[in-house]
């Protein structure tokens, strides 16, 4: 179970070594571009391969953290280099290492300038993401959590669309504002407990009044990341302007950092405050689910529509987390992984046609199925997974969340279910307008069919979405013990209330 060599560190920092490698690439511009792509793909692919060992070596019957590594960092100050995974973080690490090679593959043809810098940004991003999920030290967590901003800011700002500068600034400053409030709370927690070790902090009892403020500080950061209504406005801008692969990672992994933060910090460390604030979060999430679904209905830009649908789906996640029961949290986890795969695939769907027609306007399409039948099939599958069709991973997550919410507060489940209906409306309508109908415009008929590279990206995503939909135990078994352990930490008095 605990391997003798530091597997987690290797997985975290292997992409960084790829960056050093990329710096050494020399030659003509075209040469550098090709080599940079290959290096990035191989490095991230190998990272994914290594991360599979986490899955193989993971013991689902073990309570606590596995693959732990702890090295003294700031001696005498209770701050150490501490990595480890449990059933909550392991799926996210796999999700990250899985999506990065796919998104590098997705940008193969569409990124034409500064290819090397782009690949470097992606590999740095991968290190930051994996490191964040693997950190068991609060300070390290913060380093990685904030460090993500740097490569993502550059990816949106350099390779983004027309309004990329505005979107990049909004993304950066919004998230930074939330994060610095969390930083102050971390300082207070460190002052109170004298350690930044996450397991120790989870066992530490913070005074209820203090919990109130600490919860709010962490909430400021995670709510922006999730994003929850009303601080979600950076997301549509960032998604619309980001390049396709940037959107895939943004929706696939970065949004999950907020949900993961709630699970890792807010619930176990501030259980009283979490209980207190749950109704507020339910209210915000329900507004998010219904309001952003309505907003999505009104969009004329495909990417924006999917971005708003992300906000709605993440609303389910926060509902599930703050249901604070087994179904709710497991459902939220499942929903996050599923949304990570599905939304990445949907953004790629947009990217595929955008590469061909260079517009994201829904009205510019129609009848794509005639020219690209295989694309239409994949798009339909992902669209249905997003709607939550039984047999896809989307269904399992949403159903568990609704069950959990029902057990906690009926009204939340009822209102959230309305969001499901609206979700079906806007996704089906999007699909109808883009893929079906008669292809009247000549450029639609001349669309190139799906290339084998694009096919190669869709296949694994589809396989996993289907697999998790048909056999959800693969994921649920891994999470089960971690979730019940988490609920145990929240405390018997809270769980008894359920």
């Amino acid at each position, binding site marked *: 179970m605990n391997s003798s060599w530091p597997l987690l560190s290797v997985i975290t920092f292997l992409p960084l070594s790829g960056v050093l490698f990329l710096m050494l690439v020399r030659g003509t511009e075209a040469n550098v571009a090709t080599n940079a792509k290959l290096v990035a793909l191989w490095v991230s692919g190998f990272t994914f391969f290594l991360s599979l060992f986490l899955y193989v070596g993971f013991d689902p019957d073990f309570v606590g953290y596995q693959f732990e590594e702890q090295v*003294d*960092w*700031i*001696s*005498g*100050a209770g*701050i150490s280099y501490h990595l480890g995974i449990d059933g909550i973080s392991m799926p996210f690490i796999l999700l990250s290492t899985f999506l990065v090679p796919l998104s590098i593959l997705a940008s193969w043809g569409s990124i034409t300038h500064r290819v090397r810098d782009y690949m470097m940004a992606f590999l740095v991003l991968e290190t930051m993401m994996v490191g964040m999920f693997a950190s068991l030290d609060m*300070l390290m967590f*913060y*380093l*990685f959590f*904030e*460090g993500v*901003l*740097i490569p993502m*800011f*550059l990816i949106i*700002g*350099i390779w983004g669309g027309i309004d*990329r*500068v505005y979107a*990049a*600034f909004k993304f*950066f*400053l919004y998230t*930074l*504002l939330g994060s*610095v*409030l969390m*930083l*102050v709370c971390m*300082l*207070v927690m*460190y*002052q109170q407990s004298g350690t930044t070790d996450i397991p120790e902090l989870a066992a530490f009892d913070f005074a209820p009044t203090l919990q109130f403020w600490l919860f709010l500080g962490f909430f400021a950061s995670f709510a922006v990341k999730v994003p929850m209504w009303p601080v979600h406005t950076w997301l549509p801008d960032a998604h619309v302007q980001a390049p396709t692969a940037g959107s895939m990672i943004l929706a696939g992994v970065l949004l999950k950092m907020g949900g993961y933060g709630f699970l890792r910090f807010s619930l176990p460390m501030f259980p009283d405050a979490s209980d207190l604030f749950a109704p507020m979060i339910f209210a915000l999430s329900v507004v998010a689910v219904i309001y952003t679904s309505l907003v999505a209905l009104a969009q004329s830009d495909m990417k924006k529509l999917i971005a708003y649908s992300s906000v709605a789906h993440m609303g389910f996640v926060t509902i599930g987390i703050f249901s604070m029961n087994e179904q709710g949290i497991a459902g939220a986890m499942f929903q996050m992984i599923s949304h990570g795969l599905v939304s990445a695939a949907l953004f790629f769907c947009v990217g595929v046609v955008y590469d061909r027609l260079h517009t994201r306007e829904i009205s510019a399409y129609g009848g794509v199925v005639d020219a690209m039948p295989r694309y239409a099939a994949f798009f339909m599958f992902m669209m249905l997974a997003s709607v939550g069709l039984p047999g896809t991973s989307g269904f399992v997550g949403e159903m568990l969340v609704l069950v959990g919410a029902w057990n906690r507060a009926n009204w939340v489940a009822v209102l959230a279910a309305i969001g499901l209906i609206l979700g079906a409306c806007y996704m089906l309508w999007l699909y109808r307008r883009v893929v079906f109908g008669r292809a009247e415009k000549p450029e639609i008929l001349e669309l190139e069919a799906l290339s084998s590279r694009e096919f190669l990206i869709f296949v694994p995503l589809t396989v996993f979405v289907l697999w998790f939909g048909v056999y959800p135990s693969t994921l649920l078994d891994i999470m089960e013990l971690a979730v019940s352990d988490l609920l145990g930490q929240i405390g018997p008095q809270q769980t008894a209330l359920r």
Partner: protein
Amino acid sequence: MNLVQTFSVALPEFILVAVALSLVLVAAFANSSESEASTLKLVRSLSLGGYGLAFLSLFMLPAGQVVLFNGLFAIDGFAIYMKGLALLGAFFASWLVSDGWGEGVDRAEFHLLVLMAVLGMLLMISAHDLIALYMGLELQSLPLYVIASMRTNSLRSSEAGLKYFLLGALSSGMLLYGASLVYGFAGSTAYADIATSLNDDVSVGLTVGMVFLLSGLAFKISAAPFHMWTPDVYEGAPTPVTALFAIVPKVAAMTLIMNVTYFAFSGISDQWSQILIALSVASMIVGATGAIMQQNIKRMLAYSSIAHMGYALAGLAAGSLEGAAGVVIYMTTYVFMGAGAFSIIMSLRRDDAPVERISDLSGLSSTHPLLAAGMMVVMFSMAGIPPLAGFFGKWYVFLAAVNAGLVPLAIIGVLTSVVGAFYYLRIIKLMYFEDADAPLDEGISRQNRLVLVASLAFIILFFLGIGQLSGVVGANIVAFF
């Protein structure tokens, strides 16, 4: 204590004096025009060698506190650390000038004056008495006034020098007035005696004197509301001089403030911590908001340094040992960020003339990838984005503030850092998101490149050594106080 022991304790200072005196001789006797270049070369290597030698001699100083000259001068681990930092900064600044692109300031006089100023700073750091404090401060200030107006054919440079001199004289006056009040009420100018006199009833006169002293010192580190001179002087002075101003004097002045507050006036920490909090909040706000609209990069960095001093003061305001350690770590990162930033700015030229407008940076990433990447790292670090060095400085000072119960101060601090992030991002935006309108000159001098690479390595790899550094700093601070 005999002469030899005295020499060995004040070794770095004596080395600088010896080098400065020999520089006078070299510059005076080599006046024929054909040998000017070789004289300059000799002067440069002498002064750089002087800093290097003085730096090395720090390692030979005795451990533990030693007091010299009837209590005027003291060294200990803390002072040695700060001296090392000041010498390092001075070395960077002089090294940056010596690539011959120095806007006409790379002359023998410049190196001589900087040497004298650095000597003053070392004395300031070791001052243990108000008189020694004042002597060191003036020895530092007078050469700086001169080199601010070094470019004699430039109106702006003369204006900067004059402004700096007038306002500097004003602040020295305030400081002297405060010192005289303190002397009157405490009956001594020695820090140790002042500290003892505070054990009895604290008279109003002493408090007022302390306020004047702190105001004078706040001027030297350009903390708001005593910051007015900074943007003008930064902008007007030749860039190599600005680099020096930005990097070195603040280290010494900050050490002075720490000595005065933590040592001389430790008995009335409630009083001075109020003042420091006010200075800190004002500096953070002025620094963050003032920089937003700036078009000149030196002016922007002036406001940025005001903000940085605000953050450092937040740690000092905590009034605790870890606050002091936080300030030391902050100043360490500050020296390297400043050196990195100025090594880049001094490499930017168009048609052999220095460029200073922020908009001149646009498209830098495609024409000068190394400079742009370096600037990006420095900017992210200044904005306090982890895992770069600037973040850890902020972590330590805010940690001290939180531990001292100053949570609102920490909140104001982090919020202003978000505002500050905006203008740092603006520079990155120009370099990376936009195209160049008129290309800058190719190339970067060997000196600039070395300083840049050294400071970048420090900023990026800082997190690896933070454990060791905080250990060293913490041990020295505890030994001192």
